[in-house]
């Protein structure tokens, strides 16, 4: 579940990063997003992202949080692209959220063994 406040933070970051893709980590507890940690897109590209975020953020899982990798697509549907699937790497099977900035559509996925599985996403 991504409450409106966190959702707004995702959209604001994506809008601020235009024309490039935005990326960051969503911090969840018990399935509910508590906050968004905006990252830096090292690629600074409209078509690619390479997430750079404070390294300590990745260790929040040790405090009982779950993390979701987030990035924005400028115009295409919020579905993992072939590039996303090929570069899922160590994040295989973990939450992956994409925002389509043009339509505002937000969608959650898990990518495992090359397969893209949709995840339920609500805002309340």
């Amino acid at each position: 579940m991504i409450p409106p406040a966190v959702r707004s933070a995702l959209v604001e970051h994506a809008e601020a990063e235009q024309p490039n893709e935005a990326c960051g980590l969503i911090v969840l507890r018990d399935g509910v997003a508590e906050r968004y940690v905006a990252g830096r897109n090292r690629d600074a590209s409209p078509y690619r992202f390479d997430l750079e975020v404070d390294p300590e953020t990745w260790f929040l899982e040790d405090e009982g949080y779950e993390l979701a990798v987030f990035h924005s697509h400028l115009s295409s549907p919020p579905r993992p692209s072939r590039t996303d699937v090929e570069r899922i790497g160590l994040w295989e099977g973990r939450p992956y959220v994409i925002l389509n900035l043009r339509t505002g559509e937000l969608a959650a996925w898990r990518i495992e063994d090359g397969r893209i599985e949709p995840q339920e996403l609500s805002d309340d």
Partner: protein
Amino acid sequence: MSRVRIPPTLRDAVGGAREIEVSGGTLREVLSDLVARFPALGRQVLENGNGLAPFVNVYVDNEDIRTLGGLDTPVREGSTVILLPAMAGGERTLTPSILGTIGDTPLVELPRLAPHEGVRLYAKLEGANPTGSLKDRVAEAMVEAAEASGELVPGRELLEPTSGNTGISLALVAKLKGYSLTCVLPENSTPERIKLLELYGAKVVFSPASEGSNGAVRRALELAAREPRYFMLNQYANEANSRAHYEGTGAEIVEALPRVDALVAGLGTGGTLMGAGDRLRESFPDVVVAAAEPLQGDLVYGLRSLADGYVPPILDVSRLDRKILVSNEESVAGLRLLLDREGIFAGVSSGAVLHVARLLGEELEEGVVVCVLADGGWKYLSADFWTEGAQTMEEHVWW
């Protein structure tokens, strides 16, 4: 000593440890020590034992090593090394090699060829692969599997019996990966194929036209037995063939459509039917996997009549729900329909596949039928199937 912090995503490989003390004066030495003690980390951290793996980011004392000295970054006594998941992706990307364009072919609806209103007919256009056929998927998968197993090493020469498509695909993959390739093909293969093989750098050895595909296989086996330098990938018995279609063709269809009632592909090596068929069954358990099979005695390659006496080892006939015979005339008629009605210039086996797809569609009251069109028509121009009589089929190999 220094310490390495292990992210939660990698802890299974180190017995759950959050931190590990390691020795080494450079990052390379530190990571080598780590991997030696925890081999399960292996490729997740170091690629081929010496480069940093692509899916990991490394920080030394809170600085990203990409801004330092990479693997040569000094690691001082008491330093902290942090391993992190490297997250990258994006909407689109530049393609680093032509091999990166293999797969993800278009799935196109054929509304003018659907047998009736209740049925939606789709075609997977494998001619959109870089050398124009689905064999690009197979060639890349087989070569990479042979490399990964250690069987294919520099200095060995690839050998393959083929009517052309697999050879052309292998020639592309071999060229970019630095292997030489010899292809054995029936002497009645179309001149475009022979020319393309030569242009891509393959050596060509002919087998008698009268012996069809089986003759090419026999000749290749003889050569492989005589010359140890040859390495035969043997697409007919290579599991990487069907796996390429499981992970590629089939997965792409499942991703694109919410429902599939029938999948039709040509009966060649069996790779498409087995691989894509298995993948579709996982998502659509009632899907009918159907093979388009040429009539016994037709001089075809790629599409084969099982009655002619050779069943490819990767083909498990019990996993075919339907096997429908198609005549040369029906294949050519299908080929012309594709071009006339939908503007799709496909290879000849596609005509057979379309014929079967429409037959199955007629049997359904409503549903979705997907057919895999193995290649484009460009390599068949000299045979001129589009304007001459269907008897041309008797003179040419048509996969």
